[in-house]
């Protein structure tokens, strides 16, 4: 009963993860604040002002259009802009009611809305045609951050947008690979301390065999993610290259096992190789990328998801995903191990 329970738990967790990962909506965000090369008469200013279009993602501006507030901010200087009209849920026309003399060229765009809350578009406005006066100031408008009024949703991240769902596949796949390669590492140590224990050799082989599948899937999901967020299927990055080298090193382990015919020599040679392979995995995936510049989150000064945007909604799916994938990996490992033992027994039959 217990033997079936944890397997069912793994499958249920993964079913939950898939459903929530792909069906929970993404929270709102700001995509663009662009000049539309038109000048309009402002209702609040006695002059014509340039017209800008503010584009949101998953926003609800049409629900309470009059409540939409738009601000620009540079350092401590805040200015309110005039909302000319709300075109639809994700588009609004804004009048750039700023003085000619400004303290900076680059400004963050902020919005306040009762449904979407306070949203930020970093460096969303760049004004190259204004006179820059560092001393230019004006009275700050009242601005209170709004928490918003949305249901359960995943956080909006610039550039990542919908692909944040891949977090539930890509990262747990690598964690599961680490776990399986760790089982292989321990089995190899046990084998070297007691070379007659054939079971440890089978354990090491089965764990690496299954772990490699998870590594390949990790590479594929990572490459797909890179295509959407960085614009290329593969970039010359220490984390990505390290992951590929690690998978190749473990593929070498499988090749080595096929190349040696003598059973005792094969088990001992491959155990020693496996120890080095695991050390290489730790160095290439966990140590080296932290000492070099990397596009990958959590490496080389680039903050990981957990430090700034792994919020409670993501955690509610991410942690079950890790447990679910690991349980599936262990189940696959145990089935592979039993297959190897049965094959071995058949070989030994008189």
């Amino acid at each position, binding site marked *: 009963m217990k033997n079936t329970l944890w*397997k069912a738990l793994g*499958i249920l967790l*993964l*079913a939950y993860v*898939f*459903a*929530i990962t*792909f*069906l*929970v*909506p*993404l929270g*709102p965000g700001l995509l663009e604040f662009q000049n539309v090369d038109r000048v309009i008469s402002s209702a609040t200013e006695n002059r014509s002002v340039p017209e800008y279009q503010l584009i949101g*993602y*998953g926003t609800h501006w049409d629900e309470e259009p009059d409540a939409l507030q738009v601000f620009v901010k540079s350092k401590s200087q805040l200015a309110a802009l005039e909302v000319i009209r709300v075109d639809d849920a994700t588009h609004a026309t804004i009048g750039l009611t700023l003085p000619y003399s400004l303290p900076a060229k680059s400004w963050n765009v902020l919005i306040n809305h009762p449904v979407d809350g306070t949203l930020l578009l970093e460096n969303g406005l760049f004004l190259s045609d204004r006179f820059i006066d560092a001393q230019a100031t004006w009275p700050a408008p009242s601005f209170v951050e709004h928490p918003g009024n*949305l*249901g*359960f*949703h995943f956080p909006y991240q610039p550039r990542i947008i*919908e692909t944040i769902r891949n977090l539930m596949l890509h990262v747990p796949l690598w964690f599961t690979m680490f776990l399986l390669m760790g089982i292989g590492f321990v089995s190899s140590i046990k084998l070297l301390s007691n070379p007659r224990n054939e079971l440890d050799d089978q354990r090491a082989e089965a764990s690496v065999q299954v772990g490699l599948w998870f590594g390949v899937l990790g590479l594929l999901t990572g490459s797909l993610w890179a295509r959407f967020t960085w614009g290329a299927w593969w970039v010359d990055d220490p984390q990505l290259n390290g992951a590929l080298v690690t998978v190749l090193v473990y593929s070498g382990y499988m090749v080595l096992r096929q190349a040696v015919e003598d059973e005792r020599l094969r088990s001992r040679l491959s155990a020693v190789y496996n120890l080095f392979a695991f050390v290489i995995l730790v160095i290439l995936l966990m140590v080296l990328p932290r000492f070099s510049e990397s596009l990958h989150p959590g490496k080389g000064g680039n903050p990981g998801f957990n430090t700034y945007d792994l919020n409670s909604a993501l955690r509610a799916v991410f942690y079950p995903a890790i447990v679910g994938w690991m349980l*599936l990996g262990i*189940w*696959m490992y145990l*089935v592979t191990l*039993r*297959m190897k033992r*049965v094959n071995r*027994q*058949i070989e030994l*039959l008189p």
Partner: protein
Amino acid sequence: MMFILLQTNPLEGWFIGSGKAYVVVGVACVILIGMAWWLLRAENRLSRMEKLLNSKKNAPSD
């Protein structure tokens, strides 16, 4: 549960709004159920083979 979640936060964005999300969940669940079914079948076969091997091992030799 999903319907409650979606009611509190209406469909938005191309991914869910276009219905692609349901296709992805469907395909993912079919793959998952397929894998679980394959693993369970493999385990059943292995159990049968292990029993057979044990009985052969314990059988008296001629």
